[in-house]
């Protein structure tokens, strides 16, 4: 993107499209160009650990799978017109050296920035010698070493001698939390977790017992289910966690090994030798992204990330331009995915009035009814240039297909996927009155949709189609065995034909969508979600248990950036209450739910009165609560306060606080313990923030924070630094040596803790004891049952996928936002609420939900009502109908996995397209020759 003009809703962006010197339309991803290309270059995708050619695919699963030529490395460009090997060998004539970079102006309504991050370059840590010793590598390089598709096929080896290491060290915070070697004062938020993950996987890949040691300052496993992973790594995998910032990595003369000398917490100095040292490099904004920010004129914060506010976490300083992912701040995948949905929701709010105005409708083709016809199958065998025909005898396969039952017509084509071949297939369907088509070529994973579209245009139901994969799983993998490859191709074609003969036309149908949303919970997340939906034009029912909106945010004074919460919250409540599309139900709860995605009917009970509301989607945002400690005299002594109560004391200028001389905070009260094995994520930042405020109120006050690991992740690290500068004293403790508290006669509190550095107990006399207590979720089971969604062992709602679908449930049409998902600060709760609104609007924006196709169906006549299918369905799509003693599949919810069909003892469940008949016939055909042989043998 090289330029922008215009205004929100009506931008014009200039985009420079780099020439790839390969025509995307013609490229069939056969890879011949790369094979013939003589120029080897370091493979950037594999961090330079392997090589690729100048003609290349960025990585093996690149989408779309189209090659390109690296101009900076290509001999044709370097040597002035020589080489052209790729052009000579490309079977489709896709290579085009005449291409040039093209500038295009694209009209858009909104812009979303997601340029990602650049991994920190550790060369500048001279004492770690990354540039000098091959066995000092970065975490990114180690990822590639472990990857199955990486330079070593996933074998754990070290770069210098490709020997399997037996002892590996990870050094944390390289390029993070550091102003000496770089300008990155922030914590990169992901490195602790990735180091643990790498250590765990390295142990799995290692043939000999691997000694894995992680050197760290604070272990920051503050994400959902992360703490448990950390514990398992330590207790079950035996990974060593050593709390020490390593100063120097030294070579061991005469070997490729490396020596690390470090100081333990007790002051002892140790030296250990490692085979491999992995630097856990941090995340930073790339120069390219900085340039982009300049082009767009958006503000950048002091850590060089896009400037946003806690209340509008995906909105840049320029209206109409949104941001998500690591360019907004260092973060992990789940948070990035949430922000991506949030940014798209924010853009949708802006563009809601013109929704679908640029959408094009697909033409509708009349479908011929073939249900009464015998199968008349057309078989097309593809040469794929020489990709198939170079190994497989294509004419032989074609002629063989002609002999098989139900086959009416056969033909071989040079490229079945080409435009003219598609036209030909359509002609042949009409000429020969074909009612099934089998194409023997590449893989259905990339080309089935193309051919399905073709036969649809010729008036056939698109499911009357099968593919035999004779390229990717044929010619290409048996290149030296042409006869066997041809035999396999014949067999796979015979199997495909047999399956096609049993393939019925499949029905797709439209289910109407109620364009309204239900939001359960009237806190910040619930209100933001409701507003997000309403601003996109959908009716919303907002249900709140209490008699007011706002939830726990009412008890918070400010965000970690110091933005006051009350004005924001008052404004939000007012917007929600006055929005014409939002109906607020206070003192209310959801008592019953019927229906499914697009078509829910829920009962809302308000002080004994019940109303039914129809809605297409629901967002659960019931929030969480603070754990009320049994320990530390909480509830007995007014000087003992939880974090939120401290906020209240600040607001009310409580003399106990304002006149205090010593304040002590104890972290992890109720968190990170065996009964509650998770980190509550917000408490470290909250205590640090309160400590700074106390120091600003009274610089002479003694403020102590007793902590286990200080988890001020991301740019919050800057607060930790500020607190230390202001003289807040941080004392670490272990779970086994948790602080002891006694009450003094005057009501003050005596806090005893063992300082691990000094090695002896310390006694503090506190006027105020702040307890950073855990965040817990309550009264969530009933709602989980009503909407058929699962909970984690810790009681939080469990999303469909921890990384990739952080606001969805496996059950369609149900979404999650806020603290009921996991503890999180207000900016993340808002982002998640916006994300949930965005995901829910994907349902609500449609006039109808397309269902059917490859889904399961139960034959009511043969079903005995055993319900074996009900329990195995991961999507809650099967219900037992007691009146008829049968089970029934809701095809709107069915995803077509077929687990039910495999589990049904009477085989009365059919997964369309993969029916038992079709699978049995494929099994039979695959082994047919054998059967004939067996019969022959028996006869003899």
């Amino acid at each position, binding site marked *: 993107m090289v330029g922008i003009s215009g205004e929100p809703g009506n931008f014009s962006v200039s985009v420079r499209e780099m020439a790839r010197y390969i025509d995307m339309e013609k490229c069939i991803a056969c890879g011949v160009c790369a094979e013939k290309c003589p120029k080897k270059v370091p493979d950037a995708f594999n961090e330079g650990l392997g090589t690729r050619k100048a003609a290349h695919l960025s990585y093996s699963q690149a989408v779309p799978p189209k090659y390109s030529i690296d101009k900076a490395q290509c001999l044709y460009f370097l040597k002035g017109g020589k080489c052209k090997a790729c052009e000579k060998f490309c079977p489709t004539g896709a290579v085009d050296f005449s291409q040039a970079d093209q500038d295009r102006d694209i009209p858009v309504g909104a812009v979303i920035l997601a340029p990602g991050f650049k991994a920190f370059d550790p060369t500048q840590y001279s004492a770690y010698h990354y540039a000098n010793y091959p066995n000092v590598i970065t975490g990114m390089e180690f990822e590639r070493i472990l990857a199955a598709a990486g330079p070593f096929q996933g074998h754990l080896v070290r770069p210098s001698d490709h020997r399997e290491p037996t002892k590996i060290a990870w050094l944390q915070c390289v390029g993070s939390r550091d102003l000496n070697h770089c300008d990155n004062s922030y914590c990169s938020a992901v490195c602790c977790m990735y180091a643990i993950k790498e250590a765990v996987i390295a142990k799995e890949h290692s043939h000999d017992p691997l000694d894995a040691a992680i050197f760290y300052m604070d272990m920051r496993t503050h994400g959902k289910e992360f703490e448990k992973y950390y514990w398992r790594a330590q207790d079950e995998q035996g990974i060593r966690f050593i709390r020490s910032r390593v100063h120097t990595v030294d070579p061991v003369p005469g070997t490729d090994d490396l020596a690390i000398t470090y100081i333990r917490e007790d002051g002892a100095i140790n030296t250990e030798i490692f085979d491999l040292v992995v630097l856990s490099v941090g995340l930073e904004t790339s120069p390219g992204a900085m340039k982009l920010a300049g082009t767009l004129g958006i503000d950048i914060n002091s850590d060089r990330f896009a400037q946003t506010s806690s209340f509008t976490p995906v909105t840049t300083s320029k209206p109409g331009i949104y941001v998500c992912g690591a360019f907004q701040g260092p973060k992990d995948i789940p948070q990035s995915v949430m922000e991506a949905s949030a940014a798209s929701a924010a853009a949708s709010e802006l563009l809601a009035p013109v929704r679908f105005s640029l959408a094009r409708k697909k033409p509708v083709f009349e479908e011929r009814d073939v249900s009464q016809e015998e199968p008349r199958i057309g078989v097309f065998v593809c040469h794929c240039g020489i990709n198939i025909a170079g190994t497989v005898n294509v004419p032989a396969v074609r002629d063989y297909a002609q002999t098989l039952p139900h086959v009416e017509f056969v033909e071989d084509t040079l490229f079945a996927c080409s435009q003219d071949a598609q036209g030909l297939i359509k002609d042949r369907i009409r000429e020969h009155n074909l009612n099934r088509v089998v194409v023997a070529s590449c893989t259905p*994973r990339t080309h089935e949709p193309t051919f399905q579209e073709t036969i649809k245009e010729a008036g056939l139901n698109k499911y009357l189609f099968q593919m035999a994969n004779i390229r990717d799983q044929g010619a290409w993998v048996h290149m030296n065995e042409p006869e066997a490859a041809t035999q396999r191709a014949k067999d796979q074609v015979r199997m495909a034909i047999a399956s096609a003969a049993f393939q019925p036309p499949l029905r797709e149908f439209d289910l109407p969508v109620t364009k309204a949303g239900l939001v359960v919970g009237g806190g910040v997340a619930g209100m933001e979600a409701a507003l997000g939906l309403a601003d996109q034009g959908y009716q919303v029912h907002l249900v709140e248990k209490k008699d007011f909106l706002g939830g726990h945010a009412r008890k918070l004074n400010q965000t970690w950036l110091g933005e006051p919460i009350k004005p924001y919250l008052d404004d939000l409540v007012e917007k929600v209450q006055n929005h014409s599309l939002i109906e607020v139900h206070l003192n209310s709860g959801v008592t019953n739910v019927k229906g499914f995605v697009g078509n829910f009917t829920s009962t809302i009970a308000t002080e004994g009165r019940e109303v039914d509301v129809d809605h297409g989607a629901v967002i659960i945002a019931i929030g969480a609560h603070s754990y009320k400690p049994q320990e530390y005299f909480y509830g007995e002594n007014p000087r003992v306060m939880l974090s939120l109560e401290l906020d209240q004391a600040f607001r009310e200028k409580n003399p106990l606080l304002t006149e205090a001389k010593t304040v002590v905070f104890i972290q992890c009260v109720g968190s990170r313990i065996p009964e509650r094995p998770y980190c509550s994520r917000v408490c470290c930042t909250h205590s640090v923030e309160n400590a700074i405020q106390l120091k600003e109120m009274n610089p002479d006050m003694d403020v102590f924070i007793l902590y286990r690991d200080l988890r001020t992740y991301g740019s919050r690290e800057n607060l930790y630094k500020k607190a230390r500068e202001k003289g807040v004293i941080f004392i670490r403790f272990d779970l086994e040596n948790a602080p002891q508290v006694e009450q003094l006669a005057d009501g003050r509190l005596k806090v005893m803790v063992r300082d691990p550095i000094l090695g002896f107990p310390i006694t503090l006399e506190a006027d105020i004891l702040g307890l950073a207590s855990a965040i817990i979720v309550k009264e969530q089971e009933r709602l989980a049952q009503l909407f058929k969604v699962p909970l984690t062992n810790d009681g939080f709602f469990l999303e469909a996928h921890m990384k990739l679908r952080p606001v969805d449930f496996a059950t369609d049409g149900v979404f999650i936002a806020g603290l009921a998902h996991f503890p999180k600060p207000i900016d993340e709760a808002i982002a998640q609420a916006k994300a949930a609104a965005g995901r829910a609007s994907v349902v609500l924006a449609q006039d109808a939900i397309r269902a059917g196709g490859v889904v399961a169906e139960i034959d009511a006549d043969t079903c005995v009502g055993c319900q074996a299918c009900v329990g195995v369905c991961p999507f809650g799509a099967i219900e037992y109908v007691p009146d008829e003693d049968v089970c029934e599949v809701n095809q709107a919810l069915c995803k077509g996995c077929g687990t039910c069909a495999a589990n049904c003892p009477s085989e009365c469940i059919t997964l369309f397209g993969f029916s038992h008949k079709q699978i049995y016939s494929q099994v039979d055909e695959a082994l047919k020759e054998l059967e004939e042989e067996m019969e022959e043998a028996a006869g003899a």
Partner: protein
Amino acid sequence: MSEKKFEPKILGFFCNWCTYAGADLAGVSRLQYPPNIRVIRVMCSGTVSPHHVLRAFQKGADGVLIGGCHIGDCHYLRGNYMTIKRISFLQELLKFTGVEPGRLHLEWISAAEGPKLAQTVRDFTEKIRKMGPSPLKPAKQAA
């Protein structure tokens, strides 16, 4: 005919999202493996019912290879958990009927693991070759 070298017949059930994609990647990477296998594409390894596997052995398959997504990666969330249960049960059943349970093999192969797919097919084919023809092929051996 009895002098003809034994070429095992192997049937593969590969899930669409992981193992089938891994097999495609093996092809794109031109990784070579023995041509003894015939592959049936299924949406999920959980789609493979015990009956499908038993049918294969009845019809004379020397080995059956089932490929699915790694645990936690299932496109359908937990289809592959069903697969584990079914396969370990089936292996017991095969043993009971006199078929070596090793003739049925389950492997998790992701879409990125082309090399693993090729290696698995190579190893499994070799293993079955060593085991010899399936004991359920009496007719052929009688000849």
